[in-house]
């Protein structure tokens, strides 16, 4: 099983990452029938205000630990073959990808459900915080997640 968990300040290019991950880890594998991916992207509107840019802060040591625990938990719940989990930190602009979750499994149920679980668990447990700089000149911390359902 291939697994990559990465937090980075560089721009996240999800489709290139997915392609590279497959090529370097399981190019000739024939056991996966399902791939599910989720990409979270920064919007330019939040709570009715135009957002110019955002800064993502994290608690590095705890982020690594939490993300690993989340991936371990997903592997216990579903027969996942491969997991790729990437997250941006630092300064982010509208339309920039923030998070990438991709999972591979034999059948679609595990891929869909595992991908969804990883994303929801990340949002609730991984210690990241967003600060928005608004078009109005004001800046503010995002205080809570949008609901997942």
């Amino acid at each position, binding site marked *: 099983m291939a697994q990559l968990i990465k937090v980075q300040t560089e721009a996240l290019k999800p489709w290139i990452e997915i392609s590279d991950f497959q090529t370097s880890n399981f190019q000739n594998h024939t056991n996966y029938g399902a791939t599910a991916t989720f990409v979270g992207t920064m919007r330019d509107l939040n709570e009715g205000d135009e957002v110019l840019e955002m800064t993502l802060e994290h608690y590095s040591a705890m982020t690594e630990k939490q993300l690993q625990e989340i991936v371990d938990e997903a592997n216990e719940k579903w027969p996942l073959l491969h997991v790729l989990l990437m997250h941006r930190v630092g300064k982010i602009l509208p339309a920039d990808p923030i998070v990438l979750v991709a999972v591979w499994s034999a059948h679609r149920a595990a891929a869909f459900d595992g991908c969804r679980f990883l994303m929801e668990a990340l*949002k609730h447990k991984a210690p990241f*915080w967003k600060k928005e700089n608004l078009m109005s000149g004001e800046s503010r911390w995002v205080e809570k*997640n949008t609901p997942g359902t």
Partner: protein
Amino acid sequence: MLTMQTVKVLYFASLRELLGVAESSIDLKDASDAASVWKAINPSIDLPDASLVAINQSYASLDAVVQPGDEVAFFPPVTGG
């Protein structure tokens, strides 16, 4: 330099801005709990409602035991993804 008697305390996001520091430390002679660590360092500031606590990078409750040498972090609800 940190000795094993020192508890390292970290603050993130809005809590870091509220306090004006990212990190502090306190010397503990005996085991204490997270709430007491906050009060000892920030006697005049109440920990904001909904704040979260981690001890050694794992979520913990305010009454969880803190031992000398631990790393304690206080932060607001997380908003990643």
